[in-house]
């Protein structure tokens, strides 16, 4: 009996050669324990070495292999063929990003935005190393722990129609990471992350909520954004009602 196969319809785009992306179909062996990334690797190794895509760890840690699988942003290392078989699978580059080649997108916009929220601990004054670590209670850790799980895979940007329509929007992951440091009891740099509260920051978000749905790490950027809105509104009212009080 012939080995079962599954068809992958893969986006191809060769810069300088193609006017627009096209779709190429590949019939790859169907194996129950294969993920879409395994199928892509099979194509690259055995069928067509010209296919370009990003990948690295194959275990949902590096965040490199995000692509649109049947229109939904997914880590291809976690998208099993068995969940689609016997139907064909459409593999496209992450939505809302420009295409460099085939399935490879240009992520520089995301990287700039990520850097702009200063995702690191900022202290007004660093204490000397000899004085030891900055201590934290489990409850203080719990306040932001979920948001530390982000692997910068950009699936949330591909799922966000606001980012698709308004590319200036700071976007889910960058805001969630800014929020993560704002909520960290060791951090004192909230004022330096004012970009989060700008018009292109949290206030651009209309709470579609898909960012949290597609996140492979259950980070919930939508919650981070909406809670930031509440915090900022509370601070604003406080500053109006009690201008003499400390914020």
């Amino acid at each position: 009996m012939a080995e079962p196969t599954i068809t992958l319809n893969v986006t191809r785009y060769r810069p300088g050669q193609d006017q627009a992306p096209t779709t190429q179909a590949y019939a790859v062996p169907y194996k129950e324990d294969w993920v879409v990334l395994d199928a892509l690797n099979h194509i690259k190794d055995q069928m067509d070495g010209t296919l370009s895509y990003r990948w690295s760890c194959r275990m949902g840690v590096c965040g490199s292999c995000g692509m649109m699988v049947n229109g939904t942003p997914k880590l291809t290392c976690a998208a099993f063929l068995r969940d689609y078989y016997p139907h064909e699978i459409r593999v496209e580059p992450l939505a809302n990003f420009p295409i460099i080649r085939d399935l490879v997108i240009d992520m520089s916009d995301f990287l700039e935005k990520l850097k702009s929220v200063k995702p690191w601990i900022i202290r007004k004054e660093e204490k000397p190393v000899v004085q030891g670590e900055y201590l934290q209670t489990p409850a203080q850790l719990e306040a932001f722990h979920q948001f530390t799980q982000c692997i910068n895979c950009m699936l949330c940007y591909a799922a966000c129609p606001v980012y698709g329509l308004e590319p200036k929007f700071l976007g889910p992951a960058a805001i969630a990471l800014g929020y993560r440091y704002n909520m960290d009891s060791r951090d004192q740099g909230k004022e330096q992350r004012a970009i989060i509260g700008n018009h292109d920051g949290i206030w651009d978000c209309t709470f579609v909520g898909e960012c949290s749905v597609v996140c492979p790490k259950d980070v919930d950027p939508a919650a981070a954004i909406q809670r930031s809105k509440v915090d900022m509104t509370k601070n604003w009212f406080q500053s109006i009602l009690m201008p003499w009080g400390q914020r």
Partner: protein
Amino acid sequence: MSVTRPEKSKLYYRKMPATWWLQKQSYFLFMLREFSSLFIALFLLVYLVEIYQLTKGPDAYAAFIHKLSSPGWIFFHLVVLLFALYHSFTWFQSSAVVLPVRLGEHLVPRQTVTALHIVAWAVISLVVLILFLTLKG
């Protein structure tokens, strides 16, 4: 560290189609939620006119109320009611995301928070309805 951008002329930019919100159920439900505000705004306009009629005396008010009892207006209010119910439901869903509720060390599940909101809403609505019917009678 500065981010090196690839040459822009070689990139391919995809445009979001105007029908993007029809491509996924969750996007459609989002649009429906946003759209529901329009009907609530329309209802408020009618309500403002109703209050205005009240200032013009009992006859003008009675005439306006009579006008509202026509099938067209009843249909309008039914549509508004459906959108208002959907809008309120999504509001309670959103509230559970925005305001996490803690009981000691445990986080109350979002579905529970939404369900409690809906129960409170139903109880308050019932009380208001009973008060209305009692005072009217």
